[in-house]
């Protein structure tokens, strides 16, 4: 299984990024144990529109099955849901701490977008 965490830096000790579409990094690992891969999200961070859509598409293409982030909007949610990617909301902390909470089953699974879209 692959899980992604939105992060402000490219280390597992980096602080989580609360944003999904405009996160600075996606940190990806296998929660059963394994190396962290860092994926820069610079292109979407600076997109004029549709950052959440592109970020979600990227996770789909990377074969991610769950994502831990601060907030997710309606368009990204629609894609993640269609792809069957689990969305787990986490308030703060480091990437490593977020994964730890996930493994303990302490993160709530989002069943709808928790913030408004930025367009229309």
């Amino acid at each position, binding site marked *: 299984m692959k899980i992604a965490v939105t992060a402000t830096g490219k280390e597992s000790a980096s602080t989580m990024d609360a944003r999904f579409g405009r996160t600075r990094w996606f940190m990806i690992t296998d929660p059963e144990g394994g190396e962290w891969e860092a994926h820069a999200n610079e292109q979407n961070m600076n*997109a*004029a*529109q*549709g*950052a959440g*859509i*592109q970020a*979600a*598409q990227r996770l*789909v293409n990377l074969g991610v099955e769950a994502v831990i982030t601060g907030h997710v909007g309606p*368009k990204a949610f*629609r*894609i993640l849901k*269609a*792809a*069957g990617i689990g969305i787990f909301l986490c308030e703060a902390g480091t990437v490593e701490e977020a994964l730890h909470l996930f493994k303990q089953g302490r993160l709530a699974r989002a069943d709808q977008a928790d913030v408004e879209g930025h*367009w*229309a």
Partner: protein
Amino acid sequence: MGGRGGGCLNEFMNNPLKIAVASGKGGTGKTTIAVSLALTAAAAGRTVQYLDCDVEEPNGHIFFKPQIHSRFPAMVALPEVIKAQCNGCGDCADICAYNAIAVVRGQVLIFPELCRGCGACSLLCPKDAIVEISRPVGNVEIGVGAGVAFVRGVLSIGQIMTPAVIAAVKGAGGDQEITLLDCPPGTSCAVIEAVRDADAVLLVTEPTPFGLHDLTLAVEMTRALKKPFCVVLNRFDLGDDKTVAYCREENIPIILSIPDDRRIAEAYARGEALTEVLPSYAPVFTDAWERLLAWCERQIPRKKVPVPLDQGKAATS
């Protein structure tokens, strides 16, 4: 065609002149200037049309009080997937510059509110599985008021496809000798759509720090579009002299200066055309109109051929 003015005028019968009235900053007086020049040109015997391209908040109709004789919707094409033909390859999502498409597990997800109707997805789909369905994003109204042909666009609430409505307004224009395009403020896509096929651009500004700042942006935009342009200085007796100094340094002619006159604001607030209710301004606009025509004649000796700024002086960008 008869009428007053210099020798260049007859040329407009076969060679209509399109002047865009734009500004960087909002509220500088674009509509006041565009309406006044339209009425002045009509009074001088020209056939004139006024195209209200400020489709997010058009207000030219307040002054022309036109009789609207036709209306039609401005349409934008929206992609729709023929599922039976789609193989889920994802090319459409990759090509979409506006991030309006995602492809997940072979399923195409379209986000209409982000689509600009460019058609790339439909054109490049290897399976021809995308068709375009038109949807309305606004309305265009055509009429006549105060002896001037009138067209305006109105963007529907919640829509963002401003340039499409502006393009529809321009498409609804006639073949009058003189066209005045009342543009939206700023330097965005909407302004560029309004200005892009004008022969010349009038940039309306005011001599304030904001006015000057936004004028410099509008000047850069207009130069990038390779349009001849000149400046109208509204409320010229306010603010400071930096705008005049800037225009002098950049060799930008100031074709008209209007004082800060409370009566102009009052007339505007009542929806009355300046040149009609304040007759002392009529000769000011007549002079400006003739200067403008003479300037256009120098700048655009053969229409549709972009010429360098100000008689060959190199533009310092």
